[in-house]
């Protein structure tokens, strides 16, 4: 991955790293020509990971297509906070139809563009984890299977945040949500459930699948740019921390995304036609506790008593990801 080729002198913020890059490689986000696909004034919460991820992703897609871009958006936080009638934050043609049909709507847009001969105009579909991994899953799988020319972006904050933090199939084990409460013998969300949609996307053998996080927006931009250079069905799954649902400080959004990736809980990788082609290596592996303890949804693992066995189980999931996706940095990296 392009962003992993640069050796930052510290494991830290992207801004520090950006100064080390050649001008051509630096992020354009701070430049005046920034497109601001998702303009200021929207109603996302402070520290919203989804707003951050969406702006970087769609800005990158706009640059990659010379602004010839149309977006279809699932019902959810992103839709609600960006388009309270009669206001809109979107600088691109944008449609919201339903919660569960976004991939299909995008397929329809792509078909219309093809039949009209507007081959230069491209389509992005976007939704949260609920709209993607649960209710929108059938339409998503159909779009993948037909290899429709759509980039689908899932902003994964690991629960139904818009309706008040309910469990989704992307909610991690032990996490507290309104429908996986901290009561009973297995407090929070249970182990052994949930689905890994990036892997399912890969099983459709679509041309491009990637995961990314808002901790490394340059990597995210690169992946969106790459995705837009490919025709056919593409999927990018972005981890976007949610201060409200996770019970975290708004200023910790980026930090949490980084800890999720550096612990191995959220593997960042790329795959083409069903095979993993690259991954973001973990240069300094952190224990899962570092990630968990900053979030109130996991508070029951630490108080009233430290639940070392449960934390060890979560560490086991992280370690499995590290093995499975070969995430640890090697000497030659």
């Amino acid at each position, binding site marked *: 991955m392009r962003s992993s080729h640069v050796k930052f002198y510290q494991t830290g913020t992207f801004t520090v790293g950006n100064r080390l890059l050649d001008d051509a490689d630096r992020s354009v986000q701070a430049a005046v020509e920034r497109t601001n696909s998702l303009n200021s004034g929207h109603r996302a919460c402070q520290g919203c990971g989804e707003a951050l991820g969406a702006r970087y992703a769609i800005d990158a897609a706009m640059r990659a297509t010379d602004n010839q871009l149309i977006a279809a958006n699932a019902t959810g936080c992103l839709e609600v906070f960006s388009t309270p*009638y009669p206001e*809109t934050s979107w600088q*691109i043609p*944008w449609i919201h139809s339903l919660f569960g049909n976004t991939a299909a709507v995008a397929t*329809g847009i792509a078909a219309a563009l093809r039949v009209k001969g507007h081959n230069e105009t491209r389509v992005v579909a976007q939704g949260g984890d609920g709209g993607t991994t649960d209710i929108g899953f059938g*339409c998503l799988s159909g779009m993948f299977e037909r290899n429709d020319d759509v980039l689908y972006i899932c902003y994964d904050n690991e629960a139904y945040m818009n309706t008040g933090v309910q469990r989704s199939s992307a909610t991690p084990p032990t996490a507290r949500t309104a429908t996986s409460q901290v009561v009973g013998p297995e407090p929070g969300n249970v182990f052994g459930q949930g689905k890994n949609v990036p892997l399912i996307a890969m099983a459709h053998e679509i041309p491009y699948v990637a995961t990314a996080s808002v901790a490394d927006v340059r990597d995210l931009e690169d992946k969106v740019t790459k995705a837009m250079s490919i025709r056919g069905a593409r999927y990018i799954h972005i981890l976007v921390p949610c201060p409200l649902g996770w019970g975290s400080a708004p200023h910790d959004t980026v930090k949490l995304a980084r800890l999720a990736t550096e612990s191995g809980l959220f593997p960042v990788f790329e795959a083409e036609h069903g095979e993993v082609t690259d991954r973001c290596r973990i240069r300094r592996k952190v224990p899962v506790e570092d990630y968990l303890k900053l979030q109130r949804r996991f508070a029951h693992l630490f108080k009233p008593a430290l639940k070392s066995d449960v934390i060890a189980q979560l560490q086991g999931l992280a370690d499995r990801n590290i093995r499975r996706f070969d995430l640890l940095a090697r000497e030659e990296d």
Partner: protein
Amino acid sequence: MLKQIEGSRAVAEAVALCRPEVICAYPITPQTHIVENLGQMVKGGEVDHCEFINVESEFAALSVAIGASAAGARAYTATASQGLLFMAEAVYNASGLGLPIVMTIGNRAIGAPINIWNDQQDSMSMRDAGWIQLYAETNQEAVDLHIQAVRLAEELSVPVMVCVDGFILTHAFERVDIPGQTQVDDFVPPYEPRQILDPADPVTIGAMVGPEAFTEVRYLAHYRQMQALWLIPELAEEFAEQFGRSSGGLLHEYRVEGAETLVVALGSVNGTIKDVVDQMRDDGIAIGSVSVTSFRPFPAKRLRQCLSGGKRIVVIEKSLAVGIGGIVSTDVRMALAGAGLPVHTVVAGLGGRAITQQSLLNTLSRAHRDVLEPLTFLDLRHDVIHREIERLETQRRSGPVAENILRELGSVADRIG
């Protein structure tokens, strides 16, 4: 050109003549032959500039049509029964967004018990979804209504369902006049969308609307359907001039002059009703009928004009509002508010049960003699019902009702002929 073809093929040819740009296909009986035919025509190059998309569900079918329509393409799909219910959320959405999609419904019963045969419960379940609903009486009218529907939908920016009785029409081979391409092109101009997803002029479609504007947005949906009340007859008139035959419009009257008993129905059953009307007129009974083509918008005023001269109204309907009775008849009563006419509901033809001339004759004669109850079920097997009710009352674990009824009736083979 006159052709002896299956109803589904005729509908497919009519749709193809309207130059659709995106067609979404998902199989469900009895609509399937329509999209099969279209798929063949598109793949074989008979339809230019058209994308035929095999989707994974009816929900996706209409959702793809929504995306295509919003991006400026003329979009079409077809469904029936469970498929229409499965796409229900998208049905409301398409009209809410004002997208002029045309969809054929091959009318079929809704389960459970699962039943593939014709009635109109499916489209009736979507009567309030904001779509214009047109019901074809014959396959010729099915063809003509599709051509008119595209024009109607696009002029008003409202989606239109063309409802065609499953099997009775969709699978019937009969003579149909399929118009020529130039003729249809003259009637249906290229699609000029009111709103379009275009990077050159970005708009946001589908924003969240709160209480401050929701009523107004909904009112405008109603307003557009009220506009359709004059546009539908206007288009039918224009169609008659260009194509030389009368099809569509709000409703068709049949021998209503001086009629004391007036029958109201939707769709293909009007053929049988007309035969019965003829028979009864021959016997000197003052009876006539009205075939309602446009159920949404409901032509209340026009219907009142047709019916108010009568003494009693009988609505024959292929659907049931469980717990109250009729669906169409409720609207007919609304149209006749204050007229003081009795409106009888006759629920008939559910799940494909044949509506025979003899049964209609008996029922309408009873109505004419003013001895028909307000709500009746045509050819209901009272003996079977009573035995099942008795079983339900005496046995707690009485078992699945549908299976019990079938057992009562004996084997399928016994019931044929």
